[in-house]
C-alpha cells in the first residue's frame, strides 16, 4: 500500500503551483511582450505571484480563473483591483448579487472587453465629428503607460 503523508500532499501541491507560476510567466512573455519587456524574469515572477495572491482574495482558485485574472492585471495594471479610477472593476469582483466568484470574474472579463470595443467605437465617432477624445479614457494599458506596481508590500486590505 502506498501511503502519502499530508506534508507530501502539500509538497506536491507546491510543485504544481510553482509549475503554474512558471507557465503564467511564459504566458505573459508570449501574449503581452510589450508590457513585460522592461522586466527581468524575477520581476515577472514577482508580479505573477502577487497577482495570484490578489486573485485568491476574491475567491478565485481554478487555473482558468487565475489566468483570466492575470490577463486583466497585465492589461489594466497590476493593482487594478485597488485603483480608484477602476472602481467599477473591483465592484464586479465583489458583487454579492452574483453567487459565484468565477461568475463575477467572467462578467468582469466580458465587461472589460465590451468597454474596450465601445471606447474604440466612441473614439472613432468623436474623431469623425472633430471632437476631442473622451476625457475619461479607460483604455487597456497596452495603449496607455502601464501603472507602476506600488502596492506589492501592502496586501493586507482587500
Amino acid at each position: 500500500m502506498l501511503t502519502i503523508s499530508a506534508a507530501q500532499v502539500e509538497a506536491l501541491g507546491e510543485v504544481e503551483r510553482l509549475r503554474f507560476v512558471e507557465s503564467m510567466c511564459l504566458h505573459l512573455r508570449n501574449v503581452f511582450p510589450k508590457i513585460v519587456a522592461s522586466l527581468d524574469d524575477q520581476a515577472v515572477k514577482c508580479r505573477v505571484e502577487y497577482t495570484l495572491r490578489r486573485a485568491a482574495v476574491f475567491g478565485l482558485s481554478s487555473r482558468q480563473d487565475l489566468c483570466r485574472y492575470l490577463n486583466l492585471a497585465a492589461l489594466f495594471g497590476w493593482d487594478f483591483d485597488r485603483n480608484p479610477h477602476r472602481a467599477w472593476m473591483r465592484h464586479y469582483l465583489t458583487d454579492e448579487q452574483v453567487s459565484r466568484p468565477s461568475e463575477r470574474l467572467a462578467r468582469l472579463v466580458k465587461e472589460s472587453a465590451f468597454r474596450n470595443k465601445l471606447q474604440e467605437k466612441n473614439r472613432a465617432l468623436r474623431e469623425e465629428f472633430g471632437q476631442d477624445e473622451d476625457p475619461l479614457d479607460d483604455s487597456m494599458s497596452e495603449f496607455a503607460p502601464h501603472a507602476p506596481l506600488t502596492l506589492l508590500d501592502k496586501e493586507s486590505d482587500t
Partner: protein
Amino acid sequence: MSGASSWESAEQKAQAESAEQGPSDGTQECPLKERHAVEVVVKGMDDQPVAEVAVQLQNDAHLVLRAKTSRDGVVQFGGLDEGTYRLSLWELDGDAWEMTGDKRLPLGGRNQEKPAPWTSPPNAPPAQGFTHRIVQGECVAQLGYRYGFFPETIWDHPRNRALRAERSNLHILQPDDFVFIPAKKPRDIAVRTGLRTTLLRKGVPEELNVRFLRDDDSPRADEPFLLSITTASGALVSDIKGTTDARGFVHASIPPDATVAHIVLGKGSRQEVFELDLGYVNPIDSIAGVQARLNALGYPCGNEDNELGERTGQALRTFQQDRGLEVTGKPDEPTKKKLLEVSLS
C-alpha cells in the same frame, strides 16, 4: 501586436486552462456527472439586451443562486440537476417584467460543471412603501429604474393621486414634490433546465426626443448629429450617430438613468455643441419652468433661479411679441400654454 489581439490571445490561453480546482490543491474530484443549465436573457422594450439585472433561481429546498445579466443581457445557471426551478428578477417589482418566450439551448443545456453552489437567501426586511422627495433632475421614469418599477406603476398608485392632479406629466416634477414608492410585489415563474427563457424589462429604455430649430423657427432637418450620454450609474454608453429628421428631431433610445445628453450637431464650421441636463425642466407653473423653456427656445433668462427678474421679464416680452400674444412680461396662462406648445413639454 494590437491590444485587441493580445486580449483575444490571452483569453484563448485562459480558456485552455482547467476550470477545476487551482494549482495549489493536490486533490482531484471524481469524474463529473452530467449536469444541466438554465439560461435567461433580459431584453428591453426595444428588444435590446439589458445589463445588470439581478436574477435569482430557487430550488425546491428554497435555496437560491444569484447572478446578474452581462451586457448581452444573458445569465446562465449551470451545474443543475435536471428539473424545474423558480426564477425571479428579485430586485424588480412583479409588474416591471414579464416572460416573453423560451427556446431550447444547444445540447439541451447539458454540461459537466461542478454542482451549483446553492445558498440560503439573505434575510430581507419586509417590503414596505415609502415616500421619495424629488430633487432637481429627477422624474418618475428615473425613480422607476432606480427602485425597480415600471414607471406607470408608481405614477398610477392611488397614493400619488394628488401629485397626478398637480403635475400632468410624470417626466416633469418639481423639487420637493413627494412621490410614494409602493412596496414591490414579489413574483417568480417556473423554468425548466435545457431552456433559454426570454424576459422583458418594462420601462427600459427611455426615449429622448430633442428638436432643433433655426432662428426663424424652421426645423434643422437632415443635419448629422452625435449623441453622447452620461448616466447616474456611470455605465459606459455607446455614442449614437444619426441625422435629424424632417422636423429637426433627434430621436434616440437612452438608459432611464441618463443624466446628461451631449449633442454635437452638424460638422465643420457650422457645428454646434449642446449639453442638456435631462429631467431638469421644472413644471410650467413655476418661474424656473418658464425660464428653462425660454432659455431652450433662445430667449435668454440667465440662471433658472425661479425669480421673475428683469431678464426673465424681457425674455417673456420678446417671446410674447414674437408669438403674437399680449405683451405683459408676465407668465400668464396664454403665454404658458404657448410655451408648452412650442417647447413640446
